[in-house]
């Protein structure tokens, strides 16, 4: 997409949000990336290779599925964008394929990444195996314990998984450690950030890589319903990459209403929450200015959500901007609402969603919908990784 009012300016700002708040040691790496990313990702060679891999390796385009029974229940027309059917089970691989190609073009030999639940870590380890590149994934020590199957996958794929013992030992700390690794390896290393967060140009780069989601939706809707845009797009937001990708090509069309679901955890009136856009104040973390859950002295507060992919204390600067301009609405969804929505989709449509995606599905019961409207819900990932959580929930429910 060409420059729009929703693209960052040359310093990486979306309105007052974004920028590159990085120590001097990272300036050469970020400058190299900033000066080259558009040139590379807009080149014919990159586009050809990217789309070849998305099609033949990842399995794109992913289907846009009309969910008939769910639509009947909510008296509207619901289309599910099936990112769960991507190779490795989530939208994360769209971004890692793009960034690993970019890293290759920049001549980097070593790839690092952070991961929370392990989905981005697996997607990064996968593309590194594909390209024969060294891969180091930083993962909070607590998450290493909680997400054992994904740790095994990353190791099978040849990645080194480094358990991070600092801070609270989760995603935020893994991100800190990945940034330190990058500072300590300024020459040969490329950092694949997994969401639309981090210093400029990462938020823009990752949004562009994920924009394939809304690009396909547009084409598929045209075939299915004879117009290229829906009335609504619904997506979950942690850092916000699947939402950024799902909203991207509709941002400038005011007929499309865009709604993001944040993880409220046990509720936004409790301390156990990750609803950054509902509760956060403007601050600086991991290289950009955005909304941030923090105390009055600017110390970052550890977030909570049942979904390991959404418990991040910040959010991509694009989303802070879209909220501030009123272009998008963000609604907090609790653990319980997400679990109920996951169960509903499973029983009505035979699709077990990831807990993250279940937050987007939970938006359905939050308002009345118009019978003639068409909405797209981004089903960002599949539920395989969440079976432990689901089984605990159902054993509890059955008592």
């Amino acid at each position: 997409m060409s420059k729009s009012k929703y693209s960052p300016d040359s310093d990486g700002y979306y309105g007052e949000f974004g920028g590159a708040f990085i120590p001097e040691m990272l300036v050469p790496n970020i400058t190299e990336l900033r000066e080259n990313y558009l040139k590379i990702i807009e080149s014919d060679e990159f586009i050809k290779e990217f789309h070849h891999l998305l099609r033949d390796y990842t399995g794109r385009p992913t289907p846009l599925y009309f969910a008939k029974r769910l639509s009947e229940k909510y008296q509207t027309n619901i289309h599910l964008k099936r990112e769960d059917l991507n190779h490795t089970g989530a939208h994360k691989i769209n971004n890692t394929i793009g960034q690993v190609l970019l890293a290759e073009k920049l001549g980097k030999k070593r790839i690092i990444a952070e991961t929370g639940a392990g989905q981005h870590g697996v997607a990064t380890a996968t593309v590194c195996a594909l390209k024969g590149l060294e891969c180091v994934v930083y993962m909070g020590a607590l998450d290493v314990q909680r997400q054992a199957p994904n740790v095994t996958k990353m190791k099978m794929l040849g990645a080194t998984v480094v358990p991070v013992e600092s801070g609270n030992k989760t995603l935020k700390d893994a991100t800190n450690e990945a940034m330190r690794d990058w500072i300590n390896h300024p020459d040969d290393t490329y950092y694949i950030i997994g969401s639309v967060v981090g210093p400029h140009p990462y938020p823009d780069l990752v949004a562009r890589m994920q924009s394939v989601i809304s690009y396909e939706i547009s084409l598929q809707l045209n075939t299915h319903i004879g117009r290229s845009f829906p009335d609504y797009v619904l997506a979950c937001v942690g850092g916000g990459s699947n939402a950024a990708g799902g909203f991207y090509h509709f941002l400038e069309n005011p007929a499309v209403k865009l709604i993001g679901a944040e993880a409220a955890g046990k509720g936004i009136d409790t301390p156990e929450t990750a609803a950054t856009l509902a509760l956060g104040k403007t601050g600086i973390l991991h290289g950009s200015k955005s909304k941030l859950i923090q105390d009055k002295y600017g110390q970052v507060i550890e977030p909570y959500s049942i979904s390991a992919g959404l418990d991040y204390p910040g959010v991509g600067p694009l989303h802070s901007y879209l909220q501030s301009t009123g272009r998008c609405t963000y609604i907090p969804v609790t653990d319980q609402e997400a679990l109920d929505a996951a169960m509903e989709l499973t029983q009505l449509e035979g699709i077990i969603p990831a807990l993250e995606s279940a937050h987007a599905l939970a938006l359905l019961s939050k308002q009345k919908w118009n019978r003639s409207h068409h909405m797209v819900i981004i089903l960002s990932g599949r539920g395989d990784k969440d079976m432990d959580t689901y089984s605990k929930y159902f054993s509890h429910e059955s008592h």
Partner: protein
Amino acid sequence: MNRIDELFKRKRESVLSIYFTAGYPELNDTVHIISGLEKAGADLIEIGFPFSDPVADGPVIQASSHRALENGMNLDILFEQLSGIKATSSIPKIMMGYFNTVYQYGIDHFISKCATSGVDGVIIPDLPPEVYEREYRQLFEAAGLHVIFLVAPQTNPERAEYLETLTKGFLYRLSMSGTTGNAIAGDETWGKRSNGKPVLIGFGIHDHATFELACRHANGAIIGTGFIRHLATLEEDRLSKKKIDGRKKDRETKERSEDRGREIAEICKGFIQKIRS
């Protein structure tokens, strides 16, 4: 005149700056450490204010920050501690920390507190110089507060020149690329001086040999991790583990504070001697 400028006017060789994390090992050690270092012959003090996510720091300073926050350190307490020794301490002081804590405190509020607490300079590693210049420079300069910038080994010459022009007081030149606390080898490029501004070498300086190495090439050096390691040998709070009789509490707290001060003064003295020897 800013005391950092006074220092370099008086002394151009072997300037020793020591970093410590405020609130570590204990919340109220700030004053003891500053006066201990001042008496022991440090030239400059960098007071680190802790942040939950210190990405430019290695494990030792990270752990000290984490501990300082657990101890309850925040900018209000720190400024109060600094105000308390303003009259008796004349060593130039630099506040060092991450931008989000300053941003939440309020830039104006932070600057005015620095000015009234005897702070001479500020280092904020994740505040980009371009943003500083555009949005905050006038405020800092109006208050006579020096903002010091870092130059890394891989900083390109054009940018290095820009940073050297922008920095006030001295230029903070990194000995190597990396987080704090890594090992170093000497580098002839350290010696590069420009604009006549003094240069201090930081990161990886931790003993007499590395300090000497830095001083051969520049005006002096900054030690952080090495000093924090040294402080870590301090005993944990002994009195807090004892039951203190309510009536004796005030007297014991005062005694305890004096003991603690002597203990820290010894540690500072030992450390500076080891570096300067």
